């Protein structure tokens, strides 16, 4: 049990420190790497409380895909070279009031939310339900998602699909003059389309039409 506690505190310490480092580090690429470290330690915490499916999905989705895209964008935009402007002494004063305002608003919102927090009575009832230890985490999650909550699950899928299509439509632009490969055209080409025999007259040459 002590080992469990030690491991828990190590992971949570790493998670908190790296979360702070995400905002503090001067280089944006380093921030993304700290974000990745944060994701990894949080997924370790998930695994520690027995939610192994959630932990692995966290690794696959956030670290394996989302953070890669973050890194991609940060590296491609070359923001790494511009550094974080906040650390520029001359600019610092202009950023502080806005930042303070936003953080104060969020702080009060948090106080309101936590202060007015009440558990629904049926939630407290459901906490008393015995956990079926024979089923694995993944199995029990699957049996709930695909039966009781199938509509919510489908709707969230549809929302993601719409978001994806929206992003594609917004960024798509038709470019002209791009040579595209069509496998069908290439394969279905025949000899008489590609080769032509021409009797060339002396000193005249051949006109090639393209």
């Amino acid at each position: 049990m002590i080992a469990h506690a030690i491991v828990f505190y190590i992971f949570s310490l790493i998670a908190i420190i790296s979360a702070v480092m995400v905002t503090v580090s001067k280089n944006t690429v380093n921030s993304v790497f700290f974000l990745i470290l944060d994701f990894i330690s949080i997924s370790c915490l998930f695994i520690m409380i027995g939610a192994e499916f959630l932990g692995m999905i966290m690794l696959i989705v956030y670290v394996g895909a989302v953070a890669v895209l973050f890194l991609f964008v940060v590296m491609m935009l070359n923001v790494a070279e511009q550094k974080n402007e906040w650390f520029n002494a001359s600019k610092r004063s202009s950023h502080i009031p806005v930042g303070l305002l936003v953080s104060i608003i969020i702080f009060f919102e948090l106080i309101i939310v936590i202060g007015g927090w009440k558990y629904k009575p049926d939630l407290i009832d459901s906490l008393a339900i015995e956990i079926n230890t024979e089923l694995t985490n993944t199995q029990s999650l699957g049996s709930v998602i695909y039966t009781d909550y199938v509509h919510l699950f489908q709707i969230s899928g549809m929302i993601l699909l719409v978001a994806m299509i929206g992003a594609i439509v917004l960024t798509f632009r038709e470019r002209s003059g791009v040579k595209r490969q069509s496998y069908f055209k290439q394969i279905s080409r025949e000899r008489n389309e590609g080769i032509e025999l021409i009797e060339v007259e002396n000193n005249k040459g051949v006109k090639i039409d393209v």
Partner: protein
Amino acid sequence: MTELIIFFDQIYKILFLLVPVLVSVAMIVWLDRRVWAFVQKRRGPNVVGPFGLLQTLADALKYIFKEIIIPASSNKVIFILAPIVTMTLALIAWAVIPFSETFVLADINVGVLYLFAVSSLGVYGIIMGGWASNSKYPFLGAIRSAAQMVSYEVSIGVIIINVLLCVGSLNLSDIVLAQQNLWFVIPLFPMFVIFFISALAETNRPPFDLPEAEAELVAGYQTEYSGMMYAMFWLGEYANILLMCAMGSILFLGGWLSPIDIFPFNVIPAPIWLILKILFLFILFALIKAIVPRYRYDQLMKLGWKIFLPLSLIYVVLTASFLMYFDLLPG
């Protein structure tokens, strides 16, 4: 006291797994070069040791004694971290591979997801190395490989779903045991082919080795690396290839099971069967390296997103409806 014993027992087990994996990585590099040479009617490495078996060790020795050059304008921490990440990720994945019914280091519930997660993290070693080098070729290589690996992961994920539908468990041992009567390669043969090709792309093997296309990018993300750090990238890459072969043989070729359960076959110990299957897949990898020309980048993306992803999605629907209709759903 008992905790200490458990701790050292685990360490012993880990060493017992890791040392053979590292040795077989060295052997597999030799095999790769040998197969490649035989296809091209050359001899390949045949000087150091019997049949040139010790060639890789000699190469590794050479790398160890070479100077490690760190470019002055590179991001030094990330530059040094990159090969370590590649190597570590390639090795930790072996923890869940079951070599027989009892011989598995960590028999976890979500074994497949763990393998998938670790292989999807593999891209970080490459991105970090490419970016930290602060040079054009490595950066282009890293960008290419990130896009490539993320794209092919998607189809590998969908293929894994196909297998999971037939098994009803994420545990790797359960997946192998579910194949006792019929290896999944038979009902899911198209998925096996797509998995194999995606594995080639996922491990940056030819014909999808665009991240290190020597004609365009010198050596891609490895360009600035030298000495031991280069060797670590190289070892990590081959360990990853072996891992993909192991994954393929567990998901489709019945893992440690013998092909038929009759006398001469079922006395051969289970790990041997798994190793034979891994070797079979690896020789296919090596042959393909020798005989298939490199893909163009747009062809690679087209293959991943427009052909493999729809095909594997359709196959998920087919598998699910087949299992549903004939009432074969597990669990």
